[in-house]
């Protein structure tokens, strides 16, 4: 448990990061993982609770007390084994997870949580450095073939698990590179893409075949780049013993106000991927924030990524607004061990942005078909209902408006082409427990990740990918030893 009295002796440590002035000049990651000594201190704060709430707070149920202790003891090798036993890709979660585990940490009742995420980060970085992350191809092949559609975190986790169970796995990706949202949604300065590449390489060695530029079913609008190969669902169903739909939830929420069709109003996901492509060496269409007054609508993580990217472009100003009121800045977690609504300030915010809350968008205005400003109004929330405050209308100058208000549903056409039954929100309908877990309405077709649950965290995607793999394995083999 690290040290019995560690939590009384040590303060929570924060990972060091590059100065916000200099980091804005590039797109590389700027957060440094903890040193061995720092990690030891961080681990010493863990109390090894009899009931580790962190572990249940973590969607993949990372065995946090155990790896905290191992890091305290500097047993990094066993630490990564423990971490990998529940999480296929700790390098992703160790960087971009909002860490619900830390909100559930027992210390959060009245103190700062153990820096679990930073420990995870340190462990996996150490493991890559030391060459401990190696392919683990299955000893015995089953002869079964599985198609995984979508190469985001759910698809990747799913494919890796199935390959390790001995199945021949083919991952279909409509884009030119695999990785899904990790690849094109999350900026490089949060997650450099080499991390994905390394994993793809490992998975390749484990027998996973990636077919990029492959669209299954009818291509969703705006998806894909280059000239994709189109595949018919029936042929996929014929070729494979099981199909896993892990296509994410990529339909963004729109803002149907006057002026929406003006040039300069974009979805975040029309803006962010372009930068990632540039970093990757592609030459995508030009869309820059440089010198512009940028207004980001939506106060979440994607919005925050827009802020960071715009700043790196050299925007004249960046403003981020949110419909809901400003959440409290909490010292402790009042709804422990659950997820509290509290003010979260990201590194992108630190780099410079005006943030404002309880603001609704009335309309966009501009000339020559180009947006120039946005008209806003302050709102009040009265027992869950939004009420505009009379006379509070105001305007913001805006050359570039980025809509980052979340995603409403998966690409419907993929589901339609397979004839998958959907739930009220348009997600592929499937449960997560019991004999029918992850099974869709269509025989031998499974689904996992955002496509099933709607937009969510990467860590949930990994969880569903893993659990779905077990369900597929059980379906194919009658039983499974894959962990849930």
């Amino acid at each position, binding site marked *: 448990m690290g040290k*019995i*009295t560690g*939590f*009384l002796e040590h303060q929570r440590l924060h990972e060091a990061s590059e100065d916000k002035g200099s980091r804005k000049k590039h797109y590389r990651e700027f957060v440094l993982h903890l040193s061995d000594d720092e990690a030891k201190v961080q681990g010493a704060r863990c*109390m*090894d*609770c*009899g*009931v*580790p*709430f962190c*572990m*249940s*707070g973590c969607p993949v*149920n990372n*065995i946090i*007390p*155990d790896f905290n202790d191992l890091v305290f003891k500097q047993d990094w090798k066993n630490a990564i*084994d*423990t971490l990998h*036993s*529940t999480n296929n890709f700790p390098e992703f979660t160790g960087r971009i997870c909002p860490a619900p585990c830390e909100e*559930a940490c*027992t*210390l959060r*009742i*009245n*103190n700062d949580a153990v820096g679990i995420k930073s420990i995870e980060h340190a462990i996996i970085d150490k493991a890559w450095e030391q060459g401990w992350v190696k392919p683990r191809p299955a*000893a*015995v092949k089953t002869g079964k073939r599985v198609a995984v559609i979508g190469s985001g975190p759910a698809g990747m986790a799913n494919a890796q698990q199935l390959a*390790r169970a001995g199945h021949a796995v083919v991952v279909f990706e409509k884009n030119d590179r695999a990785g899904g949202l990790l690849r094109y949604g999350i900026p490089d300065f949060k997650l450099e893409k080499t991390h994905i590449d390394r994993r793809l390489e490992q998975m390749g060695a484990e027998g996973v075949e990636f077919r990029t530029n492959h669209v299954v079913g009818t291509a969703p609008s705006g998806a894909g780049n280059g000239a994709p190969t189109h595949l018919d669902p029936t042929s996929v169903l014929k070729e494979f013993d099981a199909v896993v739909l892990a296509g994410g939830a990529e339909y963004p929420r729109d803002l149907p106000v006057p002026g929406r069709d003006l040039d300069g109003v974009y979805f975040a996901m029309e803006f962010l991927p372009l930068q990632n492509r540039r970093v990757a060496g592609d030459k995508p269409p030009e869309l820059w924030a440089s010198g512009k007054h940028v207004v980001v609508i939506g106060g979440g993580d994607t919005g925050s990524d827009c802020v960071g990217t715009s700043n790196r472009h050299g925007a004249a100003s960046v403003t981020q607004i949110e419909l809901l009121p400003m959440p409290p800045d909490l010292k402790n977690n009042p*709804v*422990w*061990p*659950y997820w509290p609504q509290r003010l979260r300030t990201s590194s992108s915010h630190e780099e410079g942005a005006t943030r404002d809350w309880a603001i609704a968008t009335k309309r966009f205005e501009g000339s020559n078909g180009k947006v120039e400003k946005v008209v806003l109004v302050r709102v009040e929330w009265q027992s869950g209902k939004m009420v505009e405050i009379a006379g509070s209308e105001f305007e913001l100058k805006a050359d570039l408006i980025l809509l980052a208000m979340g995603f409403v549903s998966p690409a419907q056409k993929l589901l339609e082409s397979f004839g998958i039954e959907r739930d009220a929100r348009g997600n592929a309908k499937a449960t997560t427990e019991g004999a029918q877990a992850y099974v869709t309405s269509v025989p031998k077709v499974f689904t996992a990740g955002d496509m099933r649950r709607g937009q969510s965290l990467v860590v949930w995607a990994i969880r569903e990918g893993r659990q779905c793999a077990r369900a597929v394995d059980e379906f194919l083999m009658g039983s499974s*030893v*894959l*962990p*849930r």
Partner: protein
Amino acid sequence: MTQPPCAQGLYDPANEHDACGVGFVAHIKGAKSHAIVEQGLQILRNLTHRGAVGADPLAGDGAGILLQIPDALFREELAKQGIKLPAAGQYGVGMVFLPQEPASRFACEYEIERSIKEEGQILLGWRDVPRDNSSLGESVKKIEPVIRQVFVGRGRGVTVTDALERKLYIIRKSSGHAIQALNLAHGKEFYVPSMSARTIVYKGMLLADQVGAYYEDLQDSRVVSALALVHQRFSTNTFPTWDLAHPFRLVAHNGEINTLRGNVNWIRARQGAISSPILGKDLEKLWPLIYDGQSDSASFDNALEMLVMGGYSVSHAMMMMIPEAWESHSLMDTNRRAFYEYHAAMMEPWDGPAAMAFTDGRQIGATLDRNGLRPARYIVTEDDLVIMGSECGCLPIPEEKIVKKWRLQPGKMFLVDLEKGRIIDDKELKDTLADAKPYGEWIDRIRVKLDDVESDRQQPDRSAVSLLDRQQAFGYTQEDLKFLMTPMALNGEEATGSMGNDSPLAVLSDKNKPLYNYFKQLFAQVTNPPIDPIREELVTSLVSFIGPKPNLLGIDELNPPLRLEVNQPVVDFFEMEKIRHIDRYTQGKFKSYELDICYPAAWGNHAIEARLASLCAQAEDAVRSGYSIVIISDRRVNRDQVAIPALLAVSAIHQHLVAKGLRTSTGLVVETGSAREVHHFALLGGYGAEAIHPYLAMETLLDMGKRGLFGADFDSKKAIKNFVKAIGKGLRKVMSKMGISTYMSYTGAQIFEAVGLSRTLIDKYFAGTTSNVEGIGVFEVAEEALRIHRGAFGNDPVLASALEAGGEYAFRVRGEEHMWTPDAIAKLQQSTRSSSFSTFQEYSQIINDQSKRHMTLRGLFEFQLDRCQPVPIEEVEPAAEIVKRFATGAMSLGSISTEAHTNLAIAMNRIGGKSNTGEGGEDRNRYATAKAGETLSSRLGKNQIESDIELKEGDLLKSKIKQVASGRFGVTAEYLASAEQIQIKMAQGAKPGEGGQLPGKKVSEYIAMLRYSTPGVELISPPPHHDIYSIEDLAQLIHDLKNANSRASISVKLVSEIGVGTVAAGVTKAKADHVTISGHDGGTGASPWSSIKHAGTPWELGLAETQQTLVLNRLRGRIVVQADGQMKTGRDVIIGALLGADEFGFATAPLVVSGCIMMRKCHLNTCPVGVATQDPVLRKKFSGKPEHVINFFFFIAEEARALMAQLGIRKFDELIGRSDLLDTRKGIEHWKARGLDFSRIFHQPAIGAEVARYHVEGQDHGLDRALDHRLIELAEPALKRREKVSIDIPVRNINRTVGTMLSGEIARLYGHEGLPDDTIHVRLAGSAGQSFGAFLAHGVTLEIVGDTNDYCGKGLSGGHISVRPSPKFRGESTQNIITGNVVLYGAIAGEAYFSGVAGERFAVRNSGAQTVVEGVGDHACEYMTGGSVVVLGKTGRNFAAGMSGGIAYVLDEDGEFSKYCNLSMVDLEAVLPETEQSNKVSRDIWHMGEADEAILKRLIENHALHTGSKRAQSILDQWATFRSRFVKVFPKEYRRALTELATNSRKVAA
């Protein structure tokens, strides 16, 4: 004649216990008189209070008398029938109980007559024993037998009385077997109390004073005897039978044999290997020597009788059966040690508390168990009488006639030889026996110590299978390594956990569990005491003999078999190799045979049965062909070979060999990969293994060491050594929990209960073990083993490189289930904080759903709602009434913070429930009612409180339940007087049968104040209450407490295990008002993990057994029954009520409500939410509020009401005991749980509706007879006006607990301060009864001329006691006993002077009394934490064991004291002259800030003043000489604490 109920539901007559009063009177010169008979009967009457009466006040538990044959009477009486008796000694008399039914009676008589003829003896005739049954109760008359005497004359060839005696023995045995074989419905009433040419027993189901009246012979002056042995029984049940009364043919016993099952098994095991040169072929007629289901005393008598008939003298035989603790007795004479060691292999000790009086008609004597757990006092008079009894004064004798007053000492024997006409004391008796044969030489010749066997230190063949795979094959988890093995390897002892057990029983678990987990350790409670394996280690032993045992009756054995001896039963690699190749190393003296218990996994689970059969056959053949050791091994386990669980294999083979009578011809050694924790070793030993080699655990330790898991420079060999040490320590603890001191008698003793194993499995392989809810059979056991095996050798990626997580000890994903899930804890906290009943229902749903996921037995119950007519919820008793039935658990201030403790008290008092102090006193500032505006800190002091709680006007901060635990911390007259209920904690769910300790660093100034101890000094709670070694002792303590506060109800807390219902019946008869049945899984305190997990059973079992037994005994109405242990929801409460609970205890849940988040770190003082910590920084974080706790209890009550409405029951009382409303849930699909059968739990005794099913009436405590009423009356001026009063009054042994009721009055009026010294001066004369001056309050002086019995001055609370011998008594005060055992136990303050010697355990746990005594027995000053003790004479052994505070000054005239003192916690120093001390020793460490010389001298002067002691005077007269002969016993802890206190106070001053 009706019989007592047979086994039904959970009631089993096999669980009955008894204890009692015993005594004898004898004329040393053998002069016979009728006076002796009368005196015997008088002793019996004066011991009446040690017995008990049942539901029928005229029905006693049994009493009787054993006499020499009254030849004159019989001669004259038979002459009337025309029968002429031969000369005395040439005929025998059988006392025979016969069935009332005439034909059966005739059949029995006929069998006896046949046997007489068969054995070549002569039937002289029958005599009807004249009786007067007019005083018997109706219930007794119904089962009264016909009693006749049969007279047997000697046949040809029988010339001496001894030979006739043997023939009579054979006649009795063989006729008994023959009658048993007839299997008559009315035959069971047949019983032969005695059949002898020397003695006769008159006994029956009688009260003590009925014996003389019932048997008219006893009033006949022609009935003369030189000895009378009497016994009065206290049974736990109310349907004792005539035959269970004592005396038996040779003994009368006060105590209990804990190892009975093993002893009986071992007797049976010897059957094939026994022969007797004296009994010859007759020996075969004895078997079965002991019938199943016989009482411990009866079984003991049977075994002793066989030894005596086989040629041993009765004293020799007693020494074999109840040996002294010779194993680690460094002071014992070598020949005597050799005697014991030689006989140790012939007979395992019959272990347990025992004062055993015995006689063969020519000698009469008594012996005490090795630990001195029963009292036995005796006196010798100038006219050659010897009187021995459980109490002094049981036969009043004028003081001037007495020449010696003494007691039986632990392990000692005392014998009167009536033929030789003298007393033979222990030393002479044993020296004579020990010197009679060259036992030392014999031992040297036949003993082979495994340690001394030369070997070539061969490395064992290591398995080719990887360590990880093998670990997995035996079900190892990461937690086994982390929680169990690592601490053992590092520290040499088991690790501690806390917060009870909330994971499922093995049979309900989805995980695959080792077979070990299906067994629960049994433990002693009430009817016998656990022992302290640490402080009283000297009586325990782990010595084990491997290999053939000698012929038990080989009295002239010329060539006894060799024996292989190990110091303890856990053997390492090299020792195992020695055993494996023992043939080679001992030149063929021993031969071992290895049995491989693995079989091809491919054969599947059904192969196990036949494999076991083959293994048994192989073992049998091996023994028959001369192999002296059988090794049961699973080391060949691999991918294809699955191991049969070693426990199953050992037990099967052991029982098979026992049944074949071959077991003592071989040794059983188990070599298993499965054993890794204490519980495993205990089970293997308990089911027959003499030695165990845990090869895989040891390989694991080596591997862990190699991987650096114990730290860089930790030698792996040390890890193994520590592991072995830890297991040894753990075994001692497991054994001592049951009051068993030696591994030899533990081996095969089966001190376990099974939960979740089917009856057929048990009967076949673990016969004699209880299993009450059925469960899995042998094929499922194999299936579980196979599943574990497949997991190990399968392709599970999680197991590819790591062990299973486990999750038993801490919650883990993919691990074991827990009832307290993160969500359950969070929802409970949120609901009670936000007063949200709907959130609470979410919580309940989680808990009750978990029940459906197979967590608890009750989870598998369902309500028979289809039989119920629901009622509107408005008609159901209101919640405000129901919550009054709730109490919070006993959690001491010390284990939890002041804030948490008071929070619960305030909440419970607001709702009319009860909170519990726990062990450790209570701040008297909590007693007064709160006024408006007060807060916790304004009341208790700012320094004491870190997180304040606002009080409401009228709030009460005190705990209504005051606990009295073994440590007796803070138990003063005032504390008791403030109680509404006083709870005697006999056991606690988390660690039944164990003590505890509060480390010095947790003893803050505040806690020290509450506990009357020194800050910083470690406090030890002993495993037993030293004033409760048996049921009649408990009755005495209840009586004491009731005297201290007659308004309070007295509660006894028990833990569920098999037989707890019977104990509860005994507790009820002992006059408790309230009994708590705790489940095994509850408990918040720190405890070794093996105890948390493996001791005790679920409350569903214990509670149902209690209800059934109490109803069956018609006792239920007299007592309130409370259940506790993981109570969490309204559903739990309703199920508890249906199974028989009136009230409910909750501990963990209210703590969770107060902020506890189940860290399970209570023992580390680091609770991060301020609940279970004393750290002020952490206590600031306490966030609980009384309102939250109140919400919780009302939510529970509301849930209960909703269920009551559904069940159609409006009044809670009407729920109680309605187990007919419960059923087993339909459609249990779980593969293991399927076999469970709860019908025994749901059983309702078929007994009239007039018999109460819930609490309806009070107990009659008999307080009206107390002497104190008179004292209180006479002391009125003092009580009312604080005027001095002086009282003179005589006293007898039947006046118990003198001064306590008076003290209770004083404490109520004046608190702990009481009255000024000596305000009430009472002068008494005579032999005072037990507990003289218990809890004596400040201001009372009891001055007695005469003597006192056990527990004198217990809990002394400021009063003064002086005891001096009568001036007419001529004995030397240092040579004669004046007070009993366990004197000044838990004394808090006051003074006591004894001009004479005290018994064992003087001033145990004294925390403040000043006392002088002129000699003490064993274990004096044990666990003492304060006060001053002066001993002016000899001490017994183990002085100052566990002593952490206070000072003892011992006059060490012969310089031998250091050998008698336990030096592990104390230093011995000289008592310096005052000036020298001033110069040399820092005042910081002066006792009470005074010079030793000053303290010592003052106390001796007081002693001389108060008792007139000549001894004291002569010491004072030559003070300079004597001062230097005193030794100061200075506890190391005390010295350290004094130094620290001084340093701290200087720091504060600076």
